[in-house]
């Protein structure tokens, strides 16, 4: 019954399917949510660019049939910053993993949020480095087993929404790969929001994280999300730590207004130079 075209054929590179992600991995579901959000946001598809870093989630860009960039490890955000600032007309989306965006790319993450560069960052958090075989990541909760924490993790993991809010993000939300309609809605809002917008998506990694911790397969992980997740819009981001196998607080936590990098730049230069200055971001408004 394959005669009909897949509804996402216009957005996905179907000539590259099947993709590389494992059975039960949540990244594909997140991509579906993103594809639906793109349709709902109504932004012209030619004016959207997707940037990924390295890792399992770093492969997302390669499957999106838009201008898409698979960059170096941790550098998706500064690459995206260059794209966006060089052409403010583009909607620039970064989709990558927790290790890529928050560990090796952590410095770029906080500074892009501080500058309020108008990019959308969708972080797929599977609690470990999956592409390299399941190592300890910046989000691995204590005492999860990974190949580099064979006796259990003991470092304190990042609370990503708190980090994003503290750094200056104007939109912060968290969902799981199970809460896909709400995730889609958040992604749509983020796409239409002006400024640094961040959505964390908790997703299963059955092959590595779940297997090493004997948590079952992808479906078991979705059932865990079902049982342990709580929607709490506007929750205090300081209280959003995810402890091992404990509750996952989801929702939209931050939605505020702050001048973007280009808006602030235009305001400053207009004050200084007056009419001699031609606003840089004029095409974006």
């Amino acid at each position, binding site marked *: 019954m394959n005669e009909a075209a897949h509804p996402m054929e216009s957005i996905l*590179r179907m000539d*590259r399917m099947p993709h590389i992600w494992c059975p039960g991995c949540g990244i594909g579901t997140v991509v579906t949510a993103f594809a639906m959000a793109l349709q709902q946001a109504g932004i012209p*598809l*030619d*004016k959207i*660019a997707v*940037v990924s870093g390295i890792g399992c989630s770093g492969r997302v*860009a*390669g499957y999106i*049939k*838009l*201008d*898409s*960039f*698979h*960059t*170096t490890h*941790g*550098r998706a*955000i*500064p*690459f*995206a*910053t*260059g*794209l*966006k*600032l*060089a*052409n403010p*007309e*583009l909607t620039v989306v970064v989709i990558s993993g927790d290790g890529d965006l928050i560990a090796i790319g952590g*410095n*770029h993450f906080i*500074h892009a949020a501080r*500058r309020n560069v108008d990019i959308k960052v969708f972080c797929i958090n599977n609690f470990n480095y999956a592409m390299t075989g399941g190592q300890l990541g910046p989000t691995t909760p204590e005492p999860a087993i990974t190949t580099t924490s064979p006796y259990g993790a003991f470092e304190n993991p990042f609370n990503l929404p708190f980090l994003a809010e503290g750094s200056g993000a104007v939109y912060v939300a968290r969902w799981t790969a199970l809460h896909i309609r709400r995730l889609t809605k958040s992604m749509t809002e983020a796409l239409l929001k002006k400024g640094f917008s961040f959505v964390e998506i908790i997703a299963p990694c059955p092959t590595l994280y779940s297997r090493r911790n004997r948590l079952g397969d992808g479906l078991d992980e979705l059932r865990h999300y079902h049982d342990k997740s709580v929607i709490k819009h506007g929750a205090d981001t300081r209280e959003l730590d995810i402890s091992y196998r404990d509750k996952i607080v989801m929702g939209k936590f931050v939605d505020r207004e702050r001048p973007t*990098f280009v808006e602030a*730049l235009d305001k400053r*230069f207009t004050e*200084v*130079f007056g009419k*001699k*200055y*031609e606003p*840089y971001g004029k095409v974006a408004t």
Partner: protein
Amino acid sequence: MKADAKGVLTGAHYLDGDHACAEGALAAGCRFFAGYPITPSTEVAERIASRFPLVGGLFVQMEDELASMAAILGASWAGKKSMTVTSGPGFSLMMENIGLGAMTETPCVIVNVQRGGPSTGLPTLPGQQDMMQARWGSHGDYEIIAVVPNSPQECFDLTIEAFNLSEKYRVPVMVMMDECVGHMTERVDIPAASELEVYNRKLYDGPKDQYLPYKVENGNGQVPLMANAGDGYRFHITGLTHDERGYPAMNAEVQQQCVSRLMDKITGNAADICRYEEHRLKGAEVVVVTYGISSRVTMRAIELAQAKGLSVGMFRLITAWPFPEKRIKELAEKVKSLVMVELNMGQMVHELERCVAGRAKVFLSPHAGGWVHDPDDILKLIQEAAK
């Protein structure tokens, strides 16, 4: 194509090399700059930051050099001519994304105002110790282009040249200045925009659904046509080994094609890219090969040598990479010996020895940096080489 008059500060100016470099970038059409402060290169960024607002450019000071390099690649794909500036320690951080620039064939310019190293080394004093790093610094096999100015005027001229070459060959181009040239102030003549040739990347304009980002059309010197993000071609670009479609392909055949072309497009066009200056080479028995600030000290040594009746000439590298292999081989056939003068313990001399390949003697005047050579030391070496 002629330069956009908006960025061209036509007239005679008294500028240091760093400021002249910034003016060169503006004249070349650079309208995106991302950088991180580092001595002795910071004045380039400072001048760009003050000049950009009224010429429609965007300056952003990034959180580090990793980010700066990544940002100029992103900006280049958005269609802007982009540049970053640094010195040794920052250059080391940029290597990661210089590799991405080479692999994805992204036009961009990286200026390195060299200081003494290794590590933090001599932040305020000169060196030419990043010459090999410029060529080999990122992992894997690739080719880049590097130019070496020896005066503020050349900092202006060669920065334009660097942009032209990067747009033409879709490759990161390095402007390898040094602290002396960067901080030396001299007259710089900036011509009218109508007299400045600038090259803009060739863009694909065929059917949108048929665009292959890495397909080489015949007659374009192994350089594929580019498309800018937002123009509707919906292309995919990756740092992974990729086929004509830009899709990752993990096998030896595609790797061979991909890497070979990255190298061939530079080595195969070396005749078009290579620039050098020859001084009194006719009949010379000894040729001093040098570049950057060292060439100016060498000039004094050559005057002293000639006063002593020695037959000596100078060959100045303007492009260090690709190395002017063909011309050096010709010279090696004719002369008794070649002397390399550079502000390092021996870097480009390896390339010189490779090309000379025993046809003449090769001497090195090494210097660890921190100051320039003493012309008398060079003279002594010339005398030895002439024996």
